């Protein structure tokens, strides 16, 4: 995903001279190197200085630029939180904060590198929009949206490398602020966002093998959440499953539960999130997710 992001942003920057990228200690490789080589003035590496990364982006935006801040997800929001809130949120500036390797993708680097609460933290800030595309193709659309919008700040939650594509045959097109059906069924609806979509697709296959008709939805715009779309999903299926690599508080699951209560939804509702606990064990991303109850067998145990 990070290469697809860099490639897309490089293309956008070649069209739009307002685009700048401010990175915090990221070594440019592949398409990011192309950006730096072709637009050296618009590629800024502030080093290990995330507060300056956000502050500079605010200053650039105040002068009419369209800046992107980019580093490992955990360092984009937590360290410079007040700059994100005051400089970007309060002033409502069109800056995109790109959180790369969100969730527990950095599975062997320990809890300091896990991004488990970013959706809650970013969503809590007025004016902030939150986008989490589920595959590289959707990331291209999301990046292009961010490269031209002038409405305000966006937190763009992305993966790292090797993510498969799910949306090339999607039922719906990408539209900011709308949930997107990748496939449409009648019995079960699985809602997910970001790279955890891989698990959602596997669960869908297993349920289909048991004779269920399954919808899979990319809720790529977590804020503003497509409330009518979520209501329709709750009312249009017997069973709704939410899967996210995020703590229970302030993510998609809690929002969907809230909406389900508001509309007195009749469907069964199952939510799978990371626990409200830091992760002290190591292994692959799948190992860490499984330790918190997110694996295809564990999900099927609950829902099948």
């Amino acid at each position, binding site marked *: 995903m990070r290469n697809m992001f860099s490639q897309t942003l490089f293309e956008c920057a070649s069209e739009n001279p307002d685009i700048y990228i401010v990175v915090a200690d990221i070594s440019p490789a592949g398409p990011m190197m192309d950006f730096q080589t072709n637009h050296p003035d618009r590629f800024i590496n502030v080093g290990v200085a995330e507060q300056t990364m956000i502050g500079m982006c605010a*200053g650039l935006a105040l002068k009419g630029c369209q800046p992107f801040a980019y580093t490992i997800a955990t360092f984009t929001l937590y360290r410079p939180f007040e700059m994100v809130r005051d400089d970007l949120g*309060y*002033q409502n500036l069109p800056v995109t904060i790109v959180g790369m390797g969100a969730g527990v993708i950095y599975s062997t680097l320990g809890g300091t590198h896990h991004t488990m609460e970013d959706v809650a933290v970013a969503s809590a800030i007025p004016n902030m929009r939150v986008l989490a595309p589920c595959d590289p193709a959707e990331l291209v659309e999301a990046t292009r949206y961010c490269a031209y919008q002038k409405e305000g700040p966006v937190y763009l939650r992305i993966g790292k490398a090797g993510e498969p594509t799910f949306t090339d045959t999607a039922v719906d097109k990408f539209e900011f602020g709308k949930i997107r059906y990748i496939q449409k069924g009648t019995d079960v609806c699985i809602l997910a966002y970001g790279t955890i979509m891989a698990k959602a697709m596997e669960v869908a296959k297993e349920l289909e093998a048991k004779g269920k008709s399954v919808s899979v939805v990319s809720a790529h715009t977590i804020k503003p959440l497509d409330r009518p779309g979520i209501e329709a999903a709750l009312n249009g299926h017997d069973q709704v499953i939410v899967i996210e690599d995020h703590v229970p508080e302030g993510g998609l699951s809690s929002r969907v539960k809230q909406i389900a209560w508001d509309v007195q939804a009749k469907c069964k509702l199952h939510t799978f999130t990371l626990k409200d606990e830091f992760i002290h064990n190591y292994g692959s991303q799948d190992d860490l997710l499984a330790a918190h109850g997110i694996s295809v067998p564990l999900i099927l145990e609950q829902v099948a």
Partner: protein
Amino acid sequence: MTATEQNAFDVAAAKDRCKRHRKRILDMTQYVTALHVGGAFSSTEIVDCIYYNLMRPGSNGNPVGDDAPDTFLMSKGHGYMIQVMLLVDLGILTEEHLRGYCTPHGILGVHPDYGNPGIEASTGSLGHGMGMALGMAYAEKTRGTNGTIYTVMSDGEVQEGSTWEATLMASSLGVSNLVAFIDNNNMQSATFTTDTHPSFYPVVEKYEAFGWEAVEVDGHDSEAIFNAVQSRSGDKPLLVNCKTTKGKGVSYMESVPMWHYRSPDPEEYKQAIREIDEAN
């Protein structure tokens, strides 16, 4: 609107303006209590000099406006009241705005809000101005518009790590169109900065070590502030360490911590006006 003065420095005019600013702030203390008087008085000559003598005018002769080339960002948000008075002087804000200060029908609060006339960034939380000023200066430089960004920080604010991050980055990027002032009044809230952080001194050498050009002046000498900026070499960001007195111009306020955020009573007010009128 008073015309912006360029190059020729008129000491008497600067003194008259600064007396007027201080008296207007004192006038406001008589109907609102939410005012940082002390810190506004220590920044008076600095902010006046920036707007009247350093920022270049736009096509309408005003240093604030759509096509005015330079930008002022008040990093020391609690010094906002002096910026407000300059914006009134320049016709950007009005007496009507002042009457609405901190009221439900007004747009002005205690700290600068982006979106209000003449306000280039929201501040109030310390340590944000240098990063934003750097981004602005870098945009001006790389887009060929070449405006100069002026910012005023408090000496307490320089304790923020974010200030030093951006200070280091400014010189690393070779941003020469950035001029930062420290309103060095040696006070922060209720304590003396020399007590809290004796290691902050000497200031000029620290900035030089960080790759800046740096100079120290009497922050109540408008001509000295002006000359410090005019005589810079211009190939590095510039830091002007302004030695100032909190509450400058009113004897009972000067360097007395409680005047950080307090309004004088009617008798104190009269005395303050008298002292400012009678000063040289």
